């Protein structure tokens, strides 16, 4: 068989030309609204990175990104240098990275040339990208429906606008998708977005970057581990395939005495493994096989491990070497670099698991050790940590000499709530209600 055409027979080919619908309707389904907004923030940060240069110890002070939205409109504005007109014409609005595209910004976090268009398509039907860069000031109109109507012309028009300093980019998107407008009016969405930005850009915010959502300057999430003479976090640093890797892991917060019947997400949301690529948090508080938990025979996450946090920092000038996916919301489990790192992450997790088992027998002693451990910010190294060493935890003594028993009983929730109301503390745990009523009995009936 041959695929060559002749005068008599048509070419035997199957067509693979892309359609605009694929980009507008399909690609936008695979990404959340929040991740689209983060893509736009990533682009702004890359603009700032171009100015401050590569490296892990640079400052982003003076750079800001402001996101505003309501049920009618969305905008994101930055002072991070703008998109050069020459880049816009040839690369920035291109679907996918062209082979002749200039190298990515060194140490950047923007990837693959899809983020901005995908975000506009996801959020609304009409976008305006105003850019003030060192070579020109211009405005690109992305009229999605008008653009879709012509299947052959893939280009967007731009026009010159008056220049403005400081240089930066402003994207305004109107004609919002119904579900997007709904989300923008929802306090829970807004809070979740702020929380996500606070968490995912914490290490950039700590370096001076200002991110504003509405009227709120987003604070940096606090990533602290604890350290003392007896409790030291693990610390490993190595370079693998051109990527600098730093792993640190240990005690983050209080380890629970008992696992409550009704465990809420808030109670465990900080714990687990974090993966950070070029200062952008890719996985946060992961408790799945994407990091160590349940991965290839390793223990699955259990609430008993609450209190643990591990951080895997990856840095590379060439972001394509980093083990992340296009959404930057997941790790690339096929990456050999990541698999090698994962093996080390498991090793660093084990001492903590052993400690949570051991402390059950000497709870009060363990809590005293944990209480006196001081918090330190994970970006810096713990004063007690030694590079290449695993985390260490106190040796705990034998169980308290007075034997204890566990009392367990069930009562209607309404009755337990009555006690909570009487105690004027609705947050009392069921266990605490049990303890208080037991102590009350001992006092009233036994006088003790």
């Amino acid at each position: 068989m041959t695929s060559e055409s002749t005068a008599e027979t048509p070419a035997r080919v199957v067509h693979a030309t892309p359609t605009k619908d694929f980009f507008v309707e399909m690609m936008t389904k695979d990404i959340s609204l929040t991740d689209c907004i983060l893509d736009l923030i990533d682009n702004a940060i890359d603009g700032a990175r171009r100015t401050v240069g590569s490296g892990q110890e640079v400052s982003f002070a003076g750079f800001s990104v402001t996101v505003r939205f309501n049920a009618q409109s969305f905008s994101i504005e930055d002072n991070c240098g703008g998109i050069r007109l020459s880049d816009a014409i040839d690369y920035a609005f291109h679907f996918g990275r062209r082979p002749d595209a200039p190298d990515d910004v060194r140490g950047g976090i923007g990837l693959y040339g899809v983020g901005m268009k995908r975000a506009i398509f996801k959020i609304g039907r009409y976008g305006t990208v105003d850019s003030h860069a060192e070579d020109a000031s211009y405005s690109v109109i992305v009229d999605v429906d008008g653009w879709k109507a012509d299947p052959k012309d893939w280009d967007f028009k731009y026009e010159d606008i008056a220049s403005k300093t400081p240089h930066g980019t402003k994207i305004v998107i109107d004609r919002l998708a119904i579900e997007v407008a709904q989300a923008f009016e929802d306090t829970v969405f807004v809070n979740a977005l702020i929380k996500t930005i606070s968490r995912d850009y914490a290490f950039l915010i700590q370096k001076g970057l200002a991110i504003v959502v509405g009227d709120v300057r987003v604070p940096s999430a606090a990533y602290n581990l604890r350290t003392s003479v007896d409790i030291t976090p693990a610390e490993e640093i190595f370079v693998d395939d051109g990527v600098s890797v730093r792993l640190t892991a240990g005690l983050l917060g209080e380890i629970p005495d008992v696992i409550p019947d009704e465990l809420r997400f808030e109670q465990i949301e900080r714990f687990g493994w974090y993966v950070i690529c070029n200062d952008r948090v890719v996985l946060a508080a992961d408790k799945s096989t994407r990091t160590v938990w349940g991965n290839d025979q390793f223990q699955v996450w259990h609430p008993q491990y609450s209190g643990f946090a591990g951080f895997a920092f990856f840095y590379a000038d060439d972001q394509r070497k980093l083990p992340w996916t296009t959404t930057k919301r997941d790790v690339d489990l096929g990456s050999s670099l990541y698999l090698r790192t994962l093996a080390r992450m498991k090793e660093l997790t084990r001492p903590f698991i052993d400690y949570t088992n051991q402390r059950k027998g000497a709870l009060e002693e363990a809590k005293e050790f944990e209480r006196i451990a001081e918090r330190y910010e994970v970006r810096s190294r713990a004063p007690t940590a030694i590079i290449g060493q695993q985390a260490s935890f106190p040796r705990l003594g034998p169980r308290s000499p007075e034997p204890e028993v566990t009392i367990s009983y069930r009562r209607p929730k309404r009755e337990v709530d009555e006690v909570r109301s009487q105690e004027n503390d609705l947050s009392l745990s069921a266990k605490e209600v049990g303890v208080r009523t037991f102590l009350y009995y001992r006092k009233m009936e036994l006088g003790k």
Partner: protein
Amino acid sequence: MMTPSFERFDYQLRSNKNIERKLVFDLLLTGRQRFNFRTYRYMGLGSMWFADHRLAHRMLGIDNLVSIERAIHAGRAEFNKPYLSVGILPGDVSEVIPKQGKEYWQTPTIVWLDYDGLLQTEVALALEQLLGLLAANSVVIVTVNAVRRAYVRKGRADERTVATITDILGDVIPASSKPTPTPGGANRDISEKDFPSVLARSLLAFLDHKTRTSGRTDAGANFRFVPLYNLGHKDGADMITVGGALATASTEADWRDLLIKDRVLPNHNADPTYCCLDMVPLTLKEKITLDELLPQANGGALLAQAELKGLKLDHDQIAKYERYYRHFPMFLETPF
């Protein structure tokens, strides 16, 4: 066990609560041309006094009246119900609501969960259940205690009221109301003064969010929660009352219009702003004196005129009276 509130006082004898109740029904009354409330059901926690049921019947013409009452008090409530058509549903709210069949909820309903206790998980659950069941153009109102210290979780890892609200309602405290950490990184909490308004705004955000995520639609468009009430009142303890309508795309503007056109309840772009009713009780002589000076044609002169008449009330109390005098009650003892 704490004595039930109806055994401690007569609900009808609290001035600010009394005003609030009238404001709630007055607002609905202005919408009677658009919404046929006579066909609605009124569902409340009538206790032994049925003050809100009386207003629903008198002002809105609602005959279908339902009161939820704890099983142990249901018999006494049955005895005290003021009208033949009041039905008593015995049980806790979050148990009673899901027990009514789908058919039951086809009737548009005005529900007022007028608790005198704290906001608890069960209250949030009941509200969520209602938002998943109520017919379009129903109204949901809830009243809870908003005394800040009752929401401080003693002995918890996070004792802040922010954590308590988030535990019960989810992450609904508007970012602009969340206290920012101190420069040293310590978490601040909501102040005593701001707590009622923040709790009220959080509850409204909760109702809005649960409506959005209920997935309920009318003619292909999602139900929307239109906030109507953002009230506080103080007859001793701080209480808040919030609520709104479960609107459709075709009625959303009508519901918003109620608030825009209302002369008493404050709003910003049809979004109710927090309004606290904290007036001190007035004597009959004070009330008659002020009433004789009202309404003021141009406003602003009441203070001066009240002083000329010898009234010794704080200026802000007189200003508040001017706003709510149409609703201000007077309680007198009658021999019989």
